[in-house]
């Protein structure tokens, strides 16, 4: 039996973006948040380092510099009108968070304290600037908690542990979502005037990743399966400092506080590559430099990792602390408690005594559901899907272009979550409910029945492991045509194996066996798009680094890629899969593309 609910607005996902949207939309609309996790379990809570805003509390700063850094950091693939909104609204949004009680760290005169972060500079690239507002190294946790608290205060409706499987779009009008109640596998239809997707990232397609087990991008896949486009999926960020092998993130905040990279010879190698910002260069660059060192045989012990060195002795020796000042152990323990603990718990290494082995880790999806600056989801390059919105990591506004700067994601969540929430509330006022198609839940029910009845020979876990290995090996920090070709074909094979799935749990109550299998299906779709889009883009830009095309190619590729699921095989010769690609122009306002040096 399917159950029906009706709300003005449905928000899919209870992370930073979803809660921010819920909070603002619920001021005038009847809103419900539908989320597969308890909101406080969302991955926003793991964000460590900070949230950028040109408050200028520590030293002079301006939103224009922030905008410039964002555009340059994104290797000029950023839509500059959106980047301007991001940098301008950031200030307001952060003050608003403070007014909601968020416990930011404080300066001696009582203002919000800020720290340095990769790629954030003063005066258009002159020197590193302290722009990241922070609460120790659990900024995301504080944002998530604060927003959830305010949602409780404002009595927002929550459907926790409801897994959204499908978005109901017909005639280009969104009418609601289909969800499964995890507790009893009951199918629920949420009928709504507007839907906002804020389901976060999908980094679980990679093996070494900072992302949670639950980041599988199911609603993004649903969007794609509806024939709607995904933008810039080839751009996936690899964060330079994951704990070796585990991928658990050690935030850039560490380098903001002075930590540096060290190779096998004990050199601070970033000096060679990026003389101005050095270890605080953007992530794509740092990740590549690490692998350059590894390839040159200067990885630690010749292996595939380098050290990040936090020791006050090292920081003071290289004068890499904020403003070149000396740091103390006490200060680091206070500024980075969680990061130090991760190293202690998971590596058994005390970073105050020994350097920590690190390796780039899959981290952030720059691409996703294309939206305009009000969070409205796009059906193609220009038209929106009526009543459908997206915000947060799953969306592509695009403010991150080819590479996101650290601390810019949390700003993205609050700025565009807020705008999306307001926009959908405004939309809901005059709008009526478009009727639900009778067969709205049919696809979901069919797929779940198929999985539940799966008596084949393939375990989801094995397919997932193969997928993750393949994506990490073939669509990682460095990419090349033949490898990516293998990945695209590999995913197709996995999709075939996925048809022959074996399911153990046939029950109704908390059947995560079936849900995980469904998630795998979503990952397979998204991985296919990612690999195919990467294969198609024959240039190196931001997070997309090709060995066979090492230059940025503005003449041909200064545009976003839009991937459609299609039966028409126009691009099949290149990608050999059922995806149709189109280009979408980049909006350039203030800053013309230049060579990217730090």
């Amino acid at each position, binding site marked *: 039996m399917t159950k029906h609910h009706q709300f003005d607005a449905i928000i899919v996902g209870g992370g930073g973006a979803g809660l921010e949207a819920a909070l603002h939309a619920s001021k005038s609309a009847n809103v419900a948040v539908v989320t597969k996790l308890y909101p406080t379990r969302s991955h926003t809570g793991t964000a460590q380092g900070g949230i950028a805003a040109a408050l200028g509390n520590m030293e002079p700063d301006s939103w224009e510099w922030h905008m410039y850094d964002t555009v340059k950091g994104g290797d000029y693939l950023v839509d500059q009108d959106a980047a301007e909104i991001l940098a301008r609204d950031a200030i307001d949004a952060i003050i608003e968070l403070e007014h909601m009680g968020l416990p930011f760290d404080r300066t*001696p*005169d*009582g*203002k919000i304290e800020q720290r340095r972060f990769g790629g954030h500079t003063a005066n258009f690239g002159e020197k590193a600037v302290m722009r990241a507002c922070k609460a120790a190294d659990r900024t995301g946790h504080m944002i998530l908690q604060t927003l959830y608290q305010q949602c409780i205060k404002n009595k927002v409706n929550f459907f926790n542990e409801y897994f959204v499987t499908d978005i109901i779009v017909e005639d280009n009008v969104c009418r609601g979502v289909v969800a499964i109640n995890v507790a009893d596998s009951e199918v629920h239809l949420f009928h709504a005037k507007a839907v906002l997707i804020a389901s976060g990232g999908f980094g679980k397609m990679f093996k070494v990743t900072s992302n949670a087990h639950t980041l599988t991008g199911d609603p993004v896949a649903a969007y794609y399966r509806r024939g709607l486009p995904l933008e810039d999926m080839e751009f996936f960020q690899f964060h330079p400092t994951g704990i070796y092998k585990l991928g658990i993130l050690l935030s850039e905040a560490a380098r903001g506080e002075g930590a540096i990279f060290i190779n096998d010879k004990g050199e601070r190698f970033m000096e060679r590559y990026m003389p101005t910002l050095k270890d605080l260069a953007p992530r794509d660059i740092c990740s590549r430099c690490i692998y350059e060192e590894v390839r040159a045989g200067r990885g630690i012990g010749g292996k595939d990792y380098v050290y990040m060195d936090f020791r006050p002795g090292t920081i003071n020796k290289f004068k890499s602390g904020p403003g070149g000042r000396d740091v103390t152990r006490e200060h680091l323990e206070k500024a980075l408690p969680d990061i130090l603990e991760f190293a202690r718990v998971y590596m058994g290494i005390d970073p105050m005594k020994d350097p920590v082995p690190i390796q780039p880790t899959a981290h952030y999806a720059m691409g996703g559901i294309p939206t305009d600056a009000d969070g409205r989801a796009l059906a193609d390059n220009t038209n929106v899907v009526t009543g459908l919105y997206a915000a947060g990591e799953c969306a592509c506004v695009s403010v991150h272009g080819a590479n996101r700067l650290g601390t810019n994601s949390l700003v993205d969540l609050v700025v565009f979550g807020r705008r999306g929430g307001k926009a959908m509330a405004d939309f809901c006022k005059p709008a009526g409910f478009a009727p639900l198609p009778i067969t709205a839940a049919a696809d979901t029910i069919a797929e779940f029945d198929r999985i539940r009845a799966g008596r084949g020979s393939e375990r989801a876990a094995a397919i997932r492991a193969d997928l993750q290995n393949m994506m990490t090996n073939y669509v990682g920090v460095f990419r090349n045509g033949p490898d990516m070709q293998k990945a695209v074909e590999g995913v197709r094979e996995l999709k075939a194996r996925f048809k022959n799935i074996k399911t153990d749990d046939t029950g109704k109550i908390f059947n995560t066996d079936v849900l995980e299998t469904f998630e795998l299906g979503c990952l397979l779709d998204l991985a296919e798009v990612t690999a195919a889009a990467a294969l198609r883009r024959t240039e190196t830009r931001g997070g997309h680094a090709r060995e066979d095309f090492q230059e940025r190619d503005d003449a041909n590729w200064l545009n976003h890629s839009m991937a459609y699921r299609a039966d028409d095989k126009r691009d099949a010769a290149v990608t050999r899969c059922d995806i149709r690609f189109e280009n979408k122009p980049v909006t350039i306002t203030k800053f013309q593309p230049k060579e990217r040096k730090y």
Partner: protein
Amino acid sequence: MSAISSTPTVRKAAAPPTFETRMWQFMRLSGVLLIPLVWIHVALKDVIVGVHAIDLNYVQKIWAITAWRVYDMALLAFAFGHGMNGLRHVANDYFHSKSAQKIMAWAILIGWIVITAIGGIAIIGGVNMP
């Protein structure tokens, strides 16, 4: 704007004391008093004098001194009050419905009054030599 104080702020925020606040305070207060009261009592009666030396004569001899009567009165008031309130705490752990808790609280209150009254009258009345 740098005129912000750097010392911790102290604020007043009194929630009206409830019965539970009072009882919590009483448990601490009586607890402190009971250390000398109970320990001396126990040391004296159980260890130094010993039950074999205690009989009506002994009690009469002790209670002839008013100070000991006051002492025993305090012991009765604080130890038994403390213990019975402790019992109420424990009862609230095991009885979950509001009504059951009420019934237990009343039973404990009555038990406390009755036994305290018995003890109190005896201390005031003193030994009735047969």
